[in-house]
């Protein structure tokens, strides 16, 4: 019996020889080749790093002690950064809410608008807030408002994508149960979906907010306000004591926000 089975299906102990070394070897070589091109394009030069390191050490030596003369202004800039990220994230949430409903396959009110909604959120997500901010500085002028708009548009894409994926991950049973009550799609979303997913949706938003605070520290480089602008000015003036102060403020701010956000998210789920 066993022999017959083996004759029919092949001996499970002796799998047919595969030609994997050839195929996999070629793929590995291809990957190594592509990586080498990347290293070349990135102009990786260890010699330059070796020569530059003492220079960096010298600057670091000059940076200590941190310069606290402008501490008040720098703290104000840090607050401006947090404000920019917070208002930007809330703008993102407002834009994301309708998009995500259309972009979630299981709750979308219109199958026709499903793909356009996905395209829109991919477009918003694909352009970094830095690039958006650059464009808005040209449109609305220097200052944190350009940063708010940049963060808002980019976050809208990210939030809509994460939210719609959360919705698509819902078990279908309760949705079908509500559909059987004769309720409209709108009632289904408002009464069932949103309260059920609220902790996940809020947690995602907090995560994006956290991310935005980190990314908005550099938005000042394109003139979009916040502490990044002071960082750029100090580096340009080779004022390393101020650079150190700014970096320490950024570190403290980001750590505090990360901890707060993690604590809030933990309490929600």
């Amino acid at each position, binding site marked *: 019996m066993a022999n017959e089975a083996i004759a029919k299906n092949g001996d499970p102990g002796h799998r047919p020889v595969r030609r994997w070394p050839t195929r996999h070897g070629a793929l590995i070589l291809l990957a190594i080749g592509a990586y080498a091109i990347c290293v070349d394009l990135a102009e990786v030069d260890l010699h330059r790093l070796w020569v530059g390191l003492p220079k960096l050490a010298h600057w670091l030596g000059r940076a200590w002690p941190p310069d606290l003369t402008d501490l008040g202004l720098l703290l104000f800039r840090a607050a401006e950064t947090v404000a920019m990220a917070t208002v930007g994230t809330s703008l993102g949430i407002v834009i994301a809410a309708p998009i995500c409903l259309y972009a979630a396959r299981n709750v979308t009110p219109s199958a026709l608008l499903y793909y356009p909604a996905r395209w829109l959120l991919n477009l918003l997500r694909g352009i970094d807030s830095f690039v958006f901010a650059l464009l808005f500085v040209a449109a609305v002028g220097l200052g944190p408002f350009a940063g708010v708009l940049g963060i808002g548009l980019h976050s809208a894409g990210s939030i809509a994508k994460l939210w719609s994926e959360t919705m698509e991950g819902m078990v279908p*049973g*309760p949705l*079908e*149960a509500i559909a059987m*009550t004769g*309720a409209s799609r709108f*009632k*289904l979303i408002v009464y069932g979906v949103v309260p059920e997913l609220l902790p996940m949706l809020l947690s995602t938003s907090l995560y994006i907010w956290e991310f935005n605070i980190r990314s908005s520290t550099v938005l000042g480089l394109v003139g979009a306000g916040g502490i990044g602008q002071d960082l750029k000015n100090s580096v340009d003036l080779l004022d390393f004591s101020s650079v150190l102060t700014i970096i320490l403020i950024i570190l403290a701010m980001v750590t505090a926000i990360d901890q707060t956000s993690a604590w809030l998210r933990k309490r929600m789920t």
Partner: protein
Amino acid sequence: MSAMAPLPPPALEVVELSKSLNGKILFDKINFAVAAGEIVGLSGASGAGKTTLFRCVTRLSQADAGEIRLFGRDIRRLGGYQLKQARRQIGLVFQQFNLFGRLTALENVLAGRLGYMPNWRVVLRSPAAPDRRRALEALDRVGLATIAHQRADRLSGGQQQRVAIARALVQESMLIIADEPVSNLDPESAEIVLGLLCDLARRDGRAVLCSLHQPEFLGRFVDRAMRLSNGQLATIDDGPWRKTDPAPSRLPGECQAETAGTGPGHPGADNRAGDVPEPCVAPFVAAG
């Protein structure tokens, strides 16, 4: 003597219904009807197509051919608002309960009223007083009034299924379809849930169609039983208790009394004749 008035159409009548899935015939031109006030059991092996049949009947899936008459009206070709209205007439009880875990038992029951509520009440989560009262009454009827404000995911399986039945109750549907409502429950909870479904047929005169795996439950709780196998529907039990003894001492309607030990229950035939029945699930308030 004047001519007899025409009989009202059955709550559910399935005519020549067919469905295939991935090349496999699940059911082929099957016919059956469920009348008001009766509880009909459906058995069949796992994968025989019972759930798909129920999904087709409720239009959660599309059948390939045939008619589904809900109180005489074919609902297979309905869409949009008309389909929503037709669905309100069917209370569906699922194997997995399908409650929203973060909502309270009361809010889950109120979901059964969503089809009737205006949008603004849904947005503000402020149901009208009669809706709220109706939901509390339904919870009371399934014996869960005391846990109305507990979150659904904190309830036991049996309690969750009773909340799901209460949701179907407030929907005011005269046809209840239960898809293996007790297969995830312990025997005690299963008896309570099946007793409730019996009561919906006996006391309210609702039509109940229920799929069940356990033969002992089929024998005790349903008026008629059908079996779905190899794409065909066969009657396996046509209520032998009614045929053999016109005044039997023990009837399937007594199932609840038997479980809870509280006096005789009521034969379904009597209730359908218009008697004022006593609740045959009175002891459920105490059951946990």
